[in-house]
């Protein structure tokens, strides 16, 4: 990887906050944080830590990690943040040790005894400040876990560290404000899109599809008893019109029974990034909507990695009244192709395409081959990035950091540096024109990355290209021949 220039370093590490705010909050981190009491922060951190340990499943994990961590430093070559900064504090194992150290000192008998014997005062506010920096420099991509011989999931430790910090008021304002709007705001979504604006957008998209495709394609709204409740990351309605139109065309072509819900049209769940409590609340709202609409078969999540992971991983953890399967729209589309229900114009996409695996759906091995199968079904010229699939590089905006606009220089200089190099190499080797990133977070980050790093390519969603190439029959009846 090319080393950082002095200018890049200055730009990436600049803190866009007033000095008075940093001093008032005693928090020299790049992201903005809402004011929260700073007195007695170590004690409150330990209280929150204790409460979380008491009511969750984390304790045995930390016990196991402090016994097995061998400090082998193999994770140094897996972490793209450390590879860019070469700051030893960015080594995943070092970052995790910040929290494991607190656990060992304050929550194990040996640590408490040693603390007494050595008069060690324990957790300090400086340690908290350091954790607040470290846990948000990590993109939570979990690539380091793949090559950890001890099986330590540093992403899980980061997740827990952020949760504890959030309980004492340290969480990026960007995430907190969006979540507040989603959970108790008037619009009930993270982008604060009012319902009338949403329906206007949907009407516009329907008109657009009628004009381009010559077929009346609808986004059904509030259809009781539909098979599928479709929930996209709400930002798609602002930024990813073609993704949504592609999805609508697929649903139209297969004559699917589906609906959007007006009480909940946002799949974004920042709880996955900073609070299990938020994670649960967002998913319970999803359950309420599915129950209100008496959804029969499942919840269809739009193109989004973290929304898919949070829903698939946790909907059935929390939603006990109305359990449903969670399906990503790419899985659904591939199933329809396999069933021979979709028809494409294979001459529509002539450019070379490549595919970026979103960490949240690829790392667990959930959605890897389905999008590739879809791409290869109607596009001839496909090149693979290397590495890819479960071992992919993160876009650099993972773990919710993409939504923190004030750290864009950091994300596109440090977090996404490795990805930018990989994309440049893929373009050079395979002359890829389209980069497909089926994830709202990855799309935003990669667009900013391409722009800031001046990489000549076009970032799209998978259904954007499906929208271009799908053939809808004139009478709106689905194709069933299955031949291409």
């Amino acid at each position, binding site marked *: 990887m090319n080393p950082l220039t002095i200018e890049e370093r200055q730009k990436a590490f600049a803190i866009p906050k007033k000095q008075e705010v940093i001093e008032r909050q005693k928090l020299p981190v790049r992201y903005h944080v809402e004011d929260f009491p700073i007195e007695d922060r170590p004690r409150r951190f330990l209280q929150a830590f204790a409460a979380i340990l008491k009511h969750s499943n984390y304790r045995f994990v930390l016990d196991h990690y402090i016994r097995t961590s061998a400090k082998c430093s193999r994770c140094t070559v897996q972490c793209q943040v450390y590879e860019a900064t070469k700051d030893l504090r960015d080594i995943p194992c070092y970052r995790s040790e910040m929290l494991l150290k607190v656990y060992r000192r304050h929550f194990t008998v040996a640590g408490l005894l040693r603390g007494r014997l050595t008069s060690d005062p324990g957790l300090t506010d400086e340690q908290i400040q350091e954790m607040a920096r470290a846990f948000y420099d990590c993109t939570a991509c979990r690539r380091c876990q793949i090559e950890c011989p001890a099986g330590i999931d540093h992403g899980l430790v980061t997740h827990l560290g952020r949760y504890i910090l959030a309980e004492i008021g340290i969480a990026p304002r960007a995430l907190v404000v969006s979540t507040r709007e989603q959970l108790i705001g008037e619009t009930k979504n993270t982008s604060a899109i009012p319902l009338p604006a949403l329906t206007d957008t949907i009407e516009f998209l329907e008109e657009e599809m009628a004009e381009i495709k010559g077929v009346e394609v609808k986004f059904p709204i509030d259809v009781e008893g539909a098979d599928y409740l479709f929930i996209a990351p709400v930002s798609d309605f602002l930024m990813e019109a073609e993704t949504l139109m592609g999805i609508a065309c697929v649903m139209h072509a297969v004559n699917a029974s589906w609906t959007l819900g007006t009480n909940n049209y946002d799949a974004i769940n920042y709880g996955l990034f900073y609070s299990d409590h938020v994670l*649960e609340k967002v998913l319970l709202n999803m359950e309420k909507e599915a129950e209100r609409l008496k959804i029969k078969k499942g919840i269809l999540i739009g193109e989004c990695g973290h929304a898919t992971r949070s829903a698939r991983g946790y909907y059935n953890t929390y939603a006990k009244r109305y359990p449903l399967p969670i399906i990503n729209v790419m899985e659904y589309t591939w199933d329809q192709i396999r069933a021979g229900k979709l028809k494409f114009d294979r001459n529509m996409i002539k450019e070379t395409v490549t595919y970026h695996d979103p960490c949240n759906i690829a790392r667990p091995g959930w959605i890897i081959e389905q999008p590739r199968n879809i791409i290869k079904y109607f596009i001839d010229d496909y090149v693979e990035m290397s590495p890819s699939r479960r071992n992919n590089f993160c876009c650099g905006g993972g773990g919710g950091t993409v939504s923190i606009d004030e750290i864009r220089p950091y994300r596109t200089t440090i977090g996404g540096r490795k990805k930018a190099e990989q994309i440049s190499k893929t373009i050079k080797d395979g002359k890829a024109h389209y980069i497909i990133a089926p994830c709202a977070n990855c799309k935003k980050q990669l667009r900013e990355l391409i722009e800031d790093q001046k990489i000549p390519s076009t970032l799209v969603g998978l259904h954007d290209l499906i929208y271009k190439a799908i053939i809808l029959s004139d009478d709106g009846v689905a194709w069933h021949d299955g031949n291409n």
Partner: protein
Amino acid sequence: MESWLEFGKGPLFRLCFALMVLGLLRTFSFSLLGIIGAYRKAGDKIVPWGDLTNKTISWLIPLGHLWKARPVYSFISFIWHIGLILVPLFLAAHVKLWKASVGFAWFNLPQRVADILTLTTITAAILLFVMRIGSSEARILSRKQDYFWPLLLAIPFVTGFLCANVSLSAGGYEACILIHIYSANLVMVLIPFTKVAHCMLLPLSQYVSGLGWKFPRDSGDRVAATLGKKEMPV
């Protein structure tokens, strides 16, 4: 000297061995019970057991991982572990002692193979130690025990090798065997209380990380209630 030797081989060995076995069983049980407890408390019971098992096997026989990250270090570490596991368990002299003590035994390594493994283990110990002190990345991660272990583990191997090749330990055989026995006893006592406990815990690691992501239902509410923040919306 003779009485020290007898004590080290007899009661002390039995005590240290018992401490090691019981200590490892204790830590293993904690992790295993943790996994079971997490599964029971988890809000949903869908666990990718197959995937976690595949990952576990891939790390118990880590040949596929060696070249993927820090290949030189990984290869040395692999060689190191082979010697550490095979020589103490399958050295002919050790097997004979077991046979004499408990009445049964298992196959043993040819002496020549054991000698080669011993030498590679000693070499690996030195290299791992040098690589640890020579790398700023490893240094910032290292605790005292991380430096200590390769050196401590090398002692029984060096002295064992000298004892097995009497011509090398000419005159000092008794001292060598004494150091060999006492250092091995020390190793056994320390294993359960240090990172070397991973010798028993590694088969559980992937399951621990997998189950760690399974959350109990209502845990967020209960945390908020405990912290007196139940009424704070976000």
